[in-house]
């Protein structure tokens, strides 16, 4: 607050109209940059100030004023400013200073009437500040704050001000030779008694002791910093950085009264750090101190925080109880904001933990999902909570996608959400909106678009969005890279992530699991089954994210298939499929499982058995416009056709979808499709008479496709696939009588095998 005294002095200087016209604008912009809360222009002089100072230092004043001449000849503004400051020469003068502030303001109607009655005439050369102007509000607020101070707090302020002003003594002396060591308090100047020292000791003892740092930050400053920090932490979901933490520690040690907000910051920090007991402790401490702040009860917020916390640490049932209590309390207290937020949270929680929520309670407050979304949207609109409305719309889009409803609906809601984001500048929802858009395109098989959406997000919005979204996006794109066989790039992308993000336990876990998944996939392709199993064991059960769990299950099945343990794989698949059906999971996952079943049956040598399942998958995927899944299902159908010797139909089918498959940019899918094509053409070659050009043509096609499939598998470093293709190639070549080439292939085959073994 003592910095504020300086600002106030400057304001009164301005009001005294001694500021010449030339200096008015710099002066005012200096004032405004400190007076306005929060979003003062960051780049005031075009220079990037990394850490905007919360407290104004006396040097700042000097810099701002010393270059300007004043209305009084021979004096700079700085001189006048010093005069103002040094005129506050006792505790009483400080009181007078604050009392006089009201003279800076435009008078109220009553006051004016009174003045008119008493015949007081307004001085015309004064600039009067309006009550509603930023400066006027600042002055009024400062005055009010001072009035509310207890007497000893005023003394503390006064002493802080004395230290604050002290560095300017030298400059003040230059203009006022009379000023001396004790001139900071007029009461000490009156008489030069020999005993003066003792008196000063008693009154200003703590100042002369050299313990100056004590008053460096005021409670107000700390509160503002904490608020800012909290805002950051909540908006971005980050933790306190290490150096910030140590700074806070210093401030608190300096002995200012620390607002209870501190506990909340600590709570967030320890929560993010995964320190359950201390986050719990701090949360309770904070709400014990602030349960009844500003005539509002914060009970519902306490409960909401508790619910989130518990959910985060896996105490699902407790979290549910807490959130239900939150909802009812918020209803009771008519706190719409909290109510809407908790409902939305409950909805998302239900999405994330479908099993737990169905166990814990079937008849939710929200009813079915669709009804829930309708309620949420209506409420958000009523309360004007645009970001909630925007996220609700995104949830609607997501729901439409998972249920396999029309894609246009999804597009519509996404566009609505995007419109809201732009209109109300809701930056932190943009991330999820773009991710949603990317996933729509991915489902439509337009991988390149999906990819570029992710890139746009990372390029443009990463630093303004919650780190969780950023992390998600990075992981997704790394996954996508690895599917294209660009493993190293994928790993590099994973490493791009900010170290600070990973200081949050949850994010770190997510990141680790994802990296693990990528590695596991690579090991599987490399046919390092032991390593893969090892990884799998580590990853299993380490995440509650349904998506990750699903991917993990698929990889496990893949492992089993590669081992040739088809029956176990089938059993797992069946289990997975029933679970997904129970949970009404994403239609994409269900289709995927069905296709996989068909493929597994194919691998097991009984492809016909998978015909109906493959067809069903294809029709489901078609209905839901899940194009990659559709192609996969079609692939499975073509396998069935091949097994039924319907080579031509199969080839036709495959050839017709091949362009789209290539568009998906999934190496595994493409490789398999080329292999299928090769098989189909081989079959057709078999159907043709030996020696006919048709057979030759087909054989050549088959060879070509085998080569392409081999290339794709090589991209993936998939040993088994590569070997299979080489073997097939060698066989065809030998059949063609090309022994040399066949030998080459065989040699290549052996090389790859050996290399794989050596690496293993």
């Amino acid at each position, binding site marked *: 607050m003592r910095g504020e005294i300086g600002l106030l002095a400057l304001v009164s200087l301005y009001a005294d109209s001694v500021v010449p016209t030339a200096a008015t604008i710099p002066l005012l912009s200096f004032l405004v940059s400190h007076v306005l809360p929060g979003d003062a222009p960051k780049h005031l002089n075009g220079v990037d100030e990394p850490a905007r100072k919360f407290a104004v230092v006396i040097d700042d004043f000097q810099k701002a004023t010393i270059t300007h001449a004043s209305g009084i000849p021979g004096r700079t503004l700085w001189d006048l400013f010093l005069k103002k400051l040094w005129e506050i020469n*006792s*505790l*009483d*003068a400080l*009181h007078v200073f604050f*009392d006089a502030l009201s003279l800076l303001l435009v008078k109220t109607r009553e006051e004016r009437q009174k003045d008119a009655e008493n015949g007081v005439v307004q001085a015309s050369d004064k600039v009067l500040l309006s009550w509603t102007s930023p400066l006027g509000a600042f002055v009024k607020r400062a005055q009010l704050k001072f009035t509310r101070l207890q*007497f*000893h707090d005023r*003394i503390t302020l*006064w002493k802080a001000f004395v230290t604050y002003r002290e560095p300017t003594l030298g400059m003040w002396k230059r203009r006022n030779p009379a000023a001396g060591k004790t001139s900071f*308090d*007029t*009461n000490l100047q009156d*008489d030069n*008694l020999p*005993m*003066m020292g*003792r*008196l000063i*000791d*008693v*009154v200003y*003892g703590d100042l002369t002791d050299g313990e100056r740092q004590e008053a460096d930050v005021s409670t107000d400053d700390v509160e503002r910093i904490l608020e800012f920090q909290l805002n950051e932490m909540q908006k971005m979901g980050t933790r306190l950085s290490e150096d910030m933490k140590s700074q806070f520690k210093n401030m608190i040690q300096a002995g200012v009264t620390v607002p209870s907000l501190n506990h909340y910051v600590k709570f967030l920090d320890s929560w993010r750090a995964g320190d359950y007991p201390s986050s719990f402790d701090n949360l309770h401490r904070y709400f014990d101190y602030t349960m009844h702040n500003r005539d509002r009860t914060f009970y519902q917020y306490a409960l909401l925080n508790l619910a989130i916390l518990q959910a985060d640490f896996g105490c699902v049932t407790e979290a549910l109880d807490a959130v239900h209590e939150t909802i009812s309390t918020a209803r009771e207290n008519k706190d719409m904001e909290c109510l809407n937020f908790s409902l939305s949270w409950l909805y998302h929680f239900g999405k994330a933990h479908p099993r737990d929520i169905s166990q814990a309670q079937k008849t939710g407050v929200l009813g079915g999902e669709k009804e829930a979304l309708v309620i949420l949207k209506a409420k958000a609109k009523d309360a004007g909570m645009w970001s909630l409305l925007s996220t609700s719309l995104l949830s609607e889009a997501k729901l439409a996608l998972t249920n396999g409803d029309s894609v246009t609906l999804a597009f519509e809601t996404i566009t609505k959400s995007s419109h809201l984001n732009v209109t109300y500048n809701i930056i932190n929802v943009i991330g999820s909106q773009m991710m949603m858009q990317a996933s729509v395109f991915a489902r439509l098989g337009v991988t390149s678009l999906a990819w570029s959406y992710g890139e746009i997000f990372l390029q443009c919005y990463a630093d303004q969005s919650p780190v969780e979204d950023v992390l998600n996006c990075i992981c997704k794109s790394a996954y996508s890279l690895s599917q294209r066989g660009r493993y190293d790039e994928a790993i590099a992308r994973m490493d791009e992530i900010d170290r600070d993000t990973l200081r949050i336990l949850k994010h770190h876990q997510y990141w680790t699991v994802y990296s693990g998944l990528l590695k596991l996939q690579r090991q599987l392709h490399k046919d390092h089954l032991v390593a893969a199993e090892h990884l799998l064991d580590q990853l299993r059960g380490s995440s509650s994210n349904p998506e990750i769990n699903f991917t993990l299950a698929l990889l496990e099945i893949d492992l089993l298939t590669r081992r040739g343990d088809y029956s176990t794989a089938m059993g797992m698949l069946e289990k997975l499929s029933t679970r997904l059906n129970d949970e009404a999971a994403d239609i994409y996952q269900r289709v995927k499982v069905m296709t996989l079943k068909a493929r597994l049956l194919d691998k097991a040598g009984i492809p016909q058995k998978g015909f109906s399942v493959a067809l069903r998958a294809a029709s489901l995927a078609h209905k839901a416009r899940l194009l990659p899944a559709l192609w996969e299902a079609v692939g499975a159908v073509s396998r069935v056709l091949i097994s039924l010797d319907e080579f031509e139909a199969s080839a036709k089918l495959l050839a017709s979808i091949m362009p789209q498959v290539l568009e998906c940019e999934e190496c595994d899918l493409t490789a398999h499709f080329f292999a299928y094509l090769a098989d189909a053409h081989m079959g057709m070659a078999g159907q043709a008479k030996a020696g006919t050009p048709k057979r030759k043509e087909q054989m050549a096609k088959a060879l070509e496709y085998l080569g392409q499939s081999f290339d794709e598998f090589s991209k993936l470093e998939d040993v088994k696939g590569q070997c299979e293709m080489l073997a097939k190639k060698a066989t065809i070549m030998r059949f063609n009588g090309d022994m040399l080439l066949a030998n080459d292939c065989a040699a290549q085959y052996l090389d790859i095998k050996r290399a794989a073994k050596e690496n293993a």
Partner: protein
Amino acid sequence: MAALSRQDANQLRATLQDAVVKCSERCLYQSAKWAAELATSLPSTGDLTPDSDTDPDSPMENVEQFPPPVPIVVTSNSDPEEARLESQEINKYLLAKSYFDCREYDRCAAVFLPSNIPRGPLSTTSPNNKTATTTNNAKGKSRETGRGAPGASILPKNTLPRLSQKALFLALYAKYMSGEKRKDEESEMVLGPADGGMTTNRELVGISRAIEGWLTDKMNKKMQETSQGWLEYLYGIVLAKGKNEEDAKRWLINSIRRCPFNWGAWLELSELVGSVEELQSTMTELPQNIMAYIYHLYASQELYQSTEQIHQRLTDLERIFPESQFLKTQRALLFYHSKDFDEAESIFSNLLHADPHRIDALDHYSNILYVMSARPKLAFLAQLATATDKFRPETCCVVGNYYSLKSEHEKAVMCFRRALTLDRNFLSAWTLMGHEYVEMKNTHAAIESYRRAVDVNRKDYRAWYGLGQTYEVLEMHLYALFYYQRAASLRPYDPKMWQAVGSCYDKVGRPVQSIKAYKRALLAGTYYDSGSSFGSGATNAEPPHSILDPETLYQIALMHEKLDDREEAASYMEMTLAQEEGPGGDDDDDDDDEARGPGTGVTNTTSKARMWLARWEFSKGRLEKAMELANELCQDGVEVEEAKALIRDLRARMEKEKA
């Protein structure tokens, strides 16, 4: 009284040191502090130490140099019986003392006295009360007295176990303190429903009976002389609390005779003395020693006697105790009472520099600064006091005064309330809080505050005056009159009091008394100016040798007018006018024109008087004179319109007469 010889000084110091130890042994902290301060304020003997080296035989010097090893814990007792008892119970005593120091009063008392002393209001129904034989108990009607002086039993038995007097005193004193503490707790909030003198110290009965029994026992055994005075002191306090003042005084004097260096006893005694006459009469009963001398000074100061004589006494004392802050404070207060604020302020300021940690009497200093409107100084003082101790009633009063000067009355009241929460008997705070409530137009609370102030100390004229003022605001003049009279009797030489009395008499329709009161005011006004008591003959029209307050004169004139004594009224109006030029301009004595200051000049009051006179002359038909006065009025620019109207009338009359 000249400065003491070295020998005497040393002896005095030793006595005082002994008193300090004895008082702290009995947990009389304030008395101990007082005595210790006084002992250190004796001129230093540091330069005399070489002497003592050469004269090792002198026992006094030895004391100076080699303090006895154990005196802090136990002083030796000259009475062998007491000494024996004390040495027997030394263990228990130390335990009790530490309990007392930790403010565990009940526990302390229980060390020596298993709880067999009756408590509470039993005594009102006690059969002993009816068979009272002690005649001293004259005022036995009130409940308080019934409780406070139940010592009226026929044969109060000594129910106390056989203990040394020191142990006995400590135990009973602890009981008393615990009772006081409980009383404060029961009173709850300041000015709250339970706070209003209804709560009493329930231990008083028991203590009083116990001591009574002990004293009778001593008397029966013809061993009064072995008593050391401490128990008498406690008995005096208890009796005073029970409003049994005569007895209390008797026992306090008794205590003082045996143990003169217990300042607490003197303080209690001074509170019981209500007037100068009473003081004089008690002085005769007291031993003639230095303490009595200090006491007389202090009591006179409390009674607002700031005469030359008292100043002289103070000067004498300061020769003995040149460094005494207590005496300096007394001097400052004397100046304050005689409204010499500058002098008082400079003394306090010096005191502050000498010992910045001293908070005692700073509330008076702040009052002085308040009257002088020295805001920066007052703020500084508040800062200083707060730096030393935020929670002393004196500090709260200083801060409250500062707020009051800034017209932040709510905050001031808060401060005073805090002071009272800290110490309910803190007189200044009650009075000052009353002032604040008057400012806030809360007359009810103001009256209650003033009343409490008066209850604490009957000699506080400001509270009496405040009460009067408040009642005057409420238009209850007869009531107000009573309080103003009390104030005036406390400050017979303060014109403000008498003016107030006079105006009250006027309001209740008794102009004769009103005139008398106003004349007293005139007299009192001159008293301070000339510095000596002036003849009582202010009734004649002879103007005193100084400016008179024109307002008072004008009021007297108006009173005479009310009595239809218009001639007299006119003469007083003339006197009012005369004050404009000061006494020098008067016809009586032109000789010392320069010596007197100038007059008051034209004021509202004199103008009113002039107007009155003009009308009067007009009615008398002395038109010339009336014309002259009216013209003067026009020149002065006060009440011009009326004056002009009068002039017009006068002209008309003159024309008519001419015609």
